[in-house]
């Protein structure tokens, strides 16, 4: 299983510096939580890793493949869930997953098994022939998560996977993310849900105004923030991002 290596990554839009010399390493099989205020640069960072945006400077490698120089090799290893996944609303769930699986290069037999298993896991079997456009937000999120893993990626990039989900679906998705770490997938997870990061991420990266403010386990972050030994992550986060 592969890891992600980000070195002095910079992204600018004209005069706006979205990311400023960000360096970060996510080891193989690690679940890393990326947290930061709105507009901190989390989504920009993730979009560069998956190949949607091009870096202005710096390098990103996935399992040793540079995402700019060897985009195809890198993309084959990545599964991506965007913050607001827009899906083909005129396709059925099954059609959509088959389409994504095929363009991801999954073989026919394997694809059918994978879709069937995933629909079971995500309790979407009875929605297989429903149009994606007729599904609820939570169901669409589940479909997008299945699509992200059809090709058995080594690395999962999940941008705000819990946004606007009902509590039941949040619990389900939380458990699913944890299970991905347990089977050895590298997970880079961006979220505003600090509880899941505190409880399940092996490492936390705090990003603010395009730079990495702090990185490490909760204990390390407490020390960096000069916080009490039992301080919760939200307190630490606020201290480090100077919002109190």
């Amino acid at each position, binding site marked *: 299983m592969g890891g992600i290596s980000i070195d002095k990554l910079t992204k600018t*839009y004209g005069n706006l510096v979205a990311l400023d010399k960000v360096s970060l390493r996510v080891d193989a099989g690690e679940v890393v939580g990326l947290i930061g205020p709105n507009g901190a640069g989390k989504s920009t960072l993730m979009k560069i890793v*998956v*190949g*949607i*945006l*091009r870096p202005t400077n710096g390098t990103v490698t996935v399992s040793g493949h540079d995402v700019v120089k060897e*985009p*195809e*090799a890198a*993309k*084959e290893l*990545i599964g*991506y869930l*965007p913050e*607001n*996944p*827009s*899906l*083909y*609303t*005129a*396709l*059925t769930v*099954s*059609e959509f997953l*088959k*389409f*994504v*699986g*095929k*363009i*991801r*290069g999954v073989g*026919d037999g394997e*694809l*059918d098994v994978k879709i069937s298993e995933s629909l079971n896991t995500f309790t979407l079997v009875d929605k297989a*022939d*429903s*149009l*994606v*456009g*007729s599904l609820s937000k939570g169901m*669409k999120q589940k479909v997008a998560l299945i*699509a992200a893993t059809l090709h058995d990626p080594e690395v999962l990039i999940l941008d705000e996977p819990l946004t606007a989900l009902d509590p039941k679906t949040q619990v389900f998705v939380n458990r699913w993310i944890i299970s991905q770490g347990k089977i050895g997938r590298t997970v880079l997870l961006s979220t505003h849900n600090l509880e899941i990061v505190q409880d399940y991420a092996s490492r936390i990266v705090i990003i603010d105004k395009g730079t990495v403010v702090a990185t490490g386990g909760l204990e390390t972050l407490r020390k960096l923030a000069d916080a009490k030994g039992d301080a919760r992550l939200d307190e630490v986060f606020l201290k480090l991002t100077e919002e109190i």
Partner: protein
Amino acid sequence: MDGGRTRLAGWPNIAVLMRYWLKGRITRAALLWLVFGEGFAILFIAFGSQTFLAFSSKFGVTGGFSNFALSLLLAFLLIGLLQSGFSGSGLPITSADVDYVFTSPVRPRDIFVAKVLITSLATILFSFPPMMFLYIRLAVFYGAPVAAAVPAGLATLLFLVLGLVLSADVTLSLSSSLGPRLKVLRNVLIFSVAVISILPVILLIPGTPPALDVITQILPSGLTADISISLVNGSQWTAGLILDAILLIAWFAAALALGFRMSRGHFYEVLQVVAGPGDSGAMSGGRVAPLLETSGKSVWEIVRRKEVVVMRRTKERRGLLISSIFLSAFMVIYSLAGSFQSSPTSFLFILFLIGSFGSGSAGGWLEKERLWIMKTTSIDLRKYVREVYRARITPLLLILTPVTAAVGVPLVLGRLGQSGPLLGVVLALPSALEVAAIMMGGGIYFASRYGQSATDDILTTQAQQLTDVKRFLYQTIVNLALVSPVMGLVLLAAQPDPVVPVPLFVYGAILLLASLGYTYMVLKRLLDGAGDWIMRREDL
């Protein structure tokens, strides 16, 4: 508890809504659109009026000089409006309207009236200057007072608004939730609008019964033409003209009443939410029959199939089919009327119209595409665009080929023995399809370069509107430039003497190969360019 708030109803409500929508519409981009649109419309009118004047002189079907020609023009306009109705276009609304207006205690009927009025106002703003241009030109031509153009223009505007209302009626009538009683009404309506729109065109065929002419004169297009042309011809308001005006208003009232009747309880179906950035749109319906089978198929077969399924389920195919039926009807009627035989130039012009038929739908492709999926896979985007194009051009060509044949075969038969004109006509037939292919390729290229994707989170709505203006202008100009060599080769073929001294068959083959080679080269450049732009653009 209402906290002392007053609940508005009726016209005050309608006025508030119209003001709110107007404020949202009058942007820099909207004004630019208006100016460019008016400019194009005036140019079109200048060209079209010349043709119609000449046309009506030739076919003096009715007593008035260009009365018949205007009736025909209005029938064309009505058909255009009705096509959008059949395509389910409805009245456009934004998702903000859904969130904030539809959830307010405003009566649904007030929203409907306000929406019809605001759409009509936009039509008036857009149509009045070109209409006035046309009528002033005609008034000057006939030596009538220029002021006569004003009531003539107003009558025509009433006709256009009537067309909009009828279009909304058609969309409403096609909704699936109609009860059995309304379904009968729906069938009567669809039959009526088909008759209303197509009857004036049928008169082009020589030997049509005189009774049809009389019926045409009491249809909205005939009444409007009679009022407008009589006025710019210098006539006074006679009893006959007043009766025409009353009948036209009655038609309008009937269409409006029909819309209100059908809209009762479910008028929201006539409103179409315009999807905003990131809005994937909601679709009704539960389970559907699967259409995308992937086993044993290549990736590119799946890509093409996916495109076909999306076109089918988003009613794009139905719109294409309805439009092609209208187009075919025109072409056959024109052919039977002998107008192509009498004027090769009009034949070329019509072929160009056939060719440009599919360019519009290509622009909408990007909005239905989900490029973030493709961009995060290792798929070749140039190839992807080519396959999407292939999936979209195939049904278009399948529809246009019989239309082109219907136009061309009688012409070819009529020109046997005339080597120059015959070669021109023969080459014009595949050229019409080539023009269609290039125009669609151009549409896809410019959509890829300037279009708005479903995940666009960088451009603001206004910036996107300005980009759309730029796209429209570039696309129009570049597409015209790109197809001109194809049309030029047709004109070259129609010359009495070949440019190269070789047998006619060889000469024709050379021109055809040159035309096909050029089309292939242009398409390759356009589609590769589209793929490159998709890869390069970071906002998709």
